[in-house]
């Protein structure tokens, strides 16, 4: 006659129960933390790519950044969101080159505690301007009421090139006061001529953007 062995039900020990509950709680917390972190990363990366750009929407030429589709009807969502969130008025990239710099040519942040020299090459037949703002897009208050230089108002060198200096203390020549502003943003605008620019001419224009050199900091 066959024998039948029956195992009696063993109640899990208290320790095993605690381990199981702890594992469930750990998994739930991990999931919540991962979702929360992912939400943060998603929002932050979106905001960063909208405000500062990325290679998807921005071309970089040294310190100068150019939103390549800004103002175009077929602009990418980042460019559209950039215009919508900043309130900027920008001429379409089809009609002008608008370049922004937040760093010098060595990659250090532009700041009003430093003096800068900006060397620009001549751009024959093109109208351009170079303006300085604080990090929120406001002009920097100064007694000289000087915020910008243009192809019309600059004092150029004999060969057509020019030098602009930024700094707190007055200097001879093309000086823009920047004292007390904190972080700085330079905007260099070059209008296309009435009959437009060819792709080769745009490449040439982009090679001739000003060089920003930090001289000293206080």
């Amino acid at each position, binding site marked *: 006659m066959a024998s039948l062995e029956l195992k009696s039900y063993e109640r899990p020990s208290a320790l095993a129960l605690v381990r199981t509950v702890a594992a469930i709680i750990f998994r739930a917390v991990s999931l919540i933390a*991962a979702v929360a972190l*992912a939400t943060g990363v*998603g*929002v932050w990366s979106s905001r960063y790519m909208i405000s500062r750009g990325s290679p998807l929407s921005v071309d970089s030429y040294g310190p100068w950044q150019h939103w390549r589709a800004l103002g175009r009807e077929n602009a990418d969502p980042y460019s*559209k969101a950039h215009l919508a969130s900043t*309130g900027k008025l920008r001429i379409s990239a089809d009609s002008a080159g608008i370049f922004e710099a937040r760093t010098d040519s060595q990659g250090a942040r532009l700041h009003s505690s430093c003096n800068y020299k900006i060397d620009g090459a001549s751009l024959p037949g093109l109208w351009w301007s170079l303006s300085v703002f604080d990090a929120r897009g406001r002009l920097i208050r100064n007694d000289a009421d000087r915020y910008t230089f243009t192809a019309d108002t600059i004092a150029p060198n004999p060969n057509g090139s020019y030098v602009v200096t930024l700094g707190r203390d007055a200097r001879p020549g093309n000086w823009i006061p920047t004292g007390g502003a904190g972080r700085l943003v330079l905007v260099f605008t070059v*209008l296309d001529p009435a*009959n437009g620019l060819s792709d080769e001419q745009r490449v040439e224009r982009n090679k001739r953007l000003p060089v920003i050199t930090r001289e000293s900091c206080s």
Partner: protein
Amino acid sequence: MNLFKRIDWRLLVIFVLVAVIVHIVATFLAVNDQRGTAYARLANVLPHNTMTIVGPVDTQQALLPYLSPDARYAFCPFDTADRAMRVHALLPDLGWTVGVYAPDGTNLYFAAASSERETTINLSIIPADDRFLGLSSEAPQTGDTDQTIAAPKGFIVVRAPDRGDPYRTETQSVLEKASCSVRRT
């Protein structure tokens, strides 16, 4: 190898998926949030369907962030709900421009002055797309032109380069000739 075993791949996939979805949603929400656009800011403070010459851009008067102080500006927020707009502007010299923008900042029309001769711009802005007669921002931008574009809302910007004190009166008088007015259809 041990490290790979310890990674919770399901959690990692969830993390990446959620981050991508949130990124896309946040970007499109920002595209559709029109409260801070240049149009919204201008339409709140300037009369509609009238060309308004604003004062020189300085620390006290900056209607828009990053508005370059290298120029004087005339703005005309427009609404072509049931009528057409007529826009007229003179562009006498290099640096003068006229642009028509949609509320989201899209450049619908742009013309820059030629260094060789004065350009007169005569533009009609009509409300309905089906009456669009052809012109894009990539269209030729020269000559004394009479052109038509379709846009239900937006703003017109005439930009006059600031060439310094000796030229301000002359600049002002040319800028005053710019106009935008309602034309009954």
